[in-house]
């Protein structure tokens, strides 16, 4: 796969390249937020008939769970755990 200019690039590669235009990126982001909104609103209609954890009987539990667990996990891993256990790449002299 040699170097190709963006103008000549067709097919899937060209299609993907064009999605990186700032306007397209904004459009995709808007679409993503809209999809999240639709999913969350659907939760008012489609409900969990067999909750297992208590709080999951309430609507919006799973959106909140995904968001909070995701943010907290990334924060703890990158800001708390990794600074403690991070070493230079060749710490063991294997490279």
């Amino acid at each position, binding site marked *: 796969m040699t170097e190709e200019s*963006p103008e000549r690039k067709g097919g*899937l590669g*060209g299609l993907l390249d064009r999605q990186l235009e700032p306007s397209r990126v904004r459009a995709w982001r808007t679409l*993503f937020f809209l999809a999240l909104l639709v999913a969350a609103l659907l939760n008012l209609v*489609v409900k969990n008939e067999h909750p297992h*954890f208590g709080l999951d009987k309430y609507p919006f539990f799973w959106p909140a769970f995904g968001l909070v*667990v*995701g943010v907290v996990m990334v924060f703890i891993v990158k800001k708390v755990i990794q600074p403690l256990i991070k070493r230079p790449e060749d710490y063991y002299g*294997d*490279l």
Partner: protein
Amino acid sequence: MTSNFLHPSLAFLMLAAVLPFLPGSRRWRALLVIPPLVAIWAAFTNQPGDYMAISWLGQGLALAHLDPLSGIFCQVFAVMGLAGILFSLHVEDKGQHVAALLYVAGGFGCVLAGDFITLFACWELMSIGSTFLVMLNRTRESVLASFRYFLYHTVGGLFLLAGILLRYKATGSFEVGPIVPSQANPYDWLILAGFCVNAAVVPLHAWLPDAYPRGTVTGSVFMCAYTTKTAVYVLARCFPAWEILAIAGTVMAVYGVLYASMENNARRILSYHIVSQVGYMVAGIGVGTAMTINGASAHAYAHILYKGLLFMGAGAVLYSAGTAKLDELGGLAARIPWVMVCYMVAALSISGMPIFNGFVSKNMTIQGAAEAHQTLVALGLEIAAVGTFVSVGLKLPYFAFWGGKRTDWKRELKPIPVNMYFGMGLLAILCVLQGVFPQILYRYLPYQEAVSGFHPWAPWNVLQASMLLGFSGLAFYLMRNVITPHKALNLDFDWFYRLIGRILYTVVSRPAAFVDDIWTNVWNWLGLGSLMGTARGTVLFDRKVIDGIVDGSAHGVRGVGYLSAILQNGRLQSYLGLLTILALGIFAFFWYGL
């Protein structure tokens, strides 16, 4: 061999035996697809039963015990064998192919083994094959990693062997079968420990993220499928409903995603994620209901397909771009678009997104655990699901293929062989097919009576997965600058194992060095002194006796030569005179002497 049974490892072993002797550099590669095709045929046509019973050293061995549990593992091993071999067809190194063939053959041998002796032999065959799949990457770090890998697995194998032998001594049987937790003996725990090493149960997992990122591009694709899943199979076979496994599996599921979120090397992220995904299976086995054992089996099947595809995608990036480090990648989506598409199919599968096969397998275990009132297990697995999507579903592809950059048109990329696309394409199609038509997978699950109780495509399941993953995606979007990977080594339990290794090395080498010092002194005083005395005597003997004889001979020869030179003067009268003297001498000798 019984006429209606074909052992799926047979063609693999036969090709491994003859491959080194086949001539030519390319034509033999067409033969590589035969063993997996034979294995697929065998996996779909063999009927349940006991086959290939032999007697060895007075022991009855059952080389093949086929039932629904071993059957589903055989089937996915065969399919993955075909995909892995398609992916590796361009490799010219016969050694890598032989190692892979032996390794896969060992995997089949383990899941079909009806006795512990057969199981142990195949277990070790896998260990040796996979060691070479790491070593044959032929870099310094790969060779070092392969030795560590072999040491880990040798120790695990010794646990297993000790347990097997002690068990035989106590029970008089090598039969592989379920062990009741309440009746467990110490030897059962040894067997469990041996299995847990290969299942990468935390904290015995350190070999996996150490070795798999350092294997060959194609070798790691094989390894990610067989070692841990063989261990999952034997755990399901021997240790169902062991509660400790439910706890261990949940810890694995969360632990793996935490490290996957930290790491920079794509193949190490995937390696840590194997720990997490195998955690789901181990937890399912630990909960031990029909639904969770089904879930573990289904997840093993789905996992082999999408994890193989993930390693293929990351391997293709490594092959093409020359690195798998995320901080050095980015802007590649438009350059290698089909690699990205195949990777994303696997990434969405592993995340449990509807339409993809992880969705129909993962939730079976989680729901099964929840219905068995193992709420904490189910909650841990849901937390791991979020971490999975954040780390493997978003972080890895985002930084490898996009990274917030425009397309990197300047980067030199090595062309990806078409056979690699065939391997990836096959697995991608299967991931989607199983997701859309779950019955393709469910019909082979070991407990068919429990299958009807689970409906993956129920509206709530689809919405729950969509919300969970969608908002996990939002978390990634918000935290994308925090999770940005950097070059670093993150300490793990291998720090302890390396320490143990150094201590053992010291314990062995220091006393050995001490004894060696003393022996050197003793040798200097006694051995060396007597040796020197003997040497001096030998020198004297050589000089005075041997040299004397040799020197005397030399003098004699020289004298004779000198005399001959004088006598050979070319004058006829001199020769006649000498002949006369000689004749008189002979006459005198006979006259007076006799």
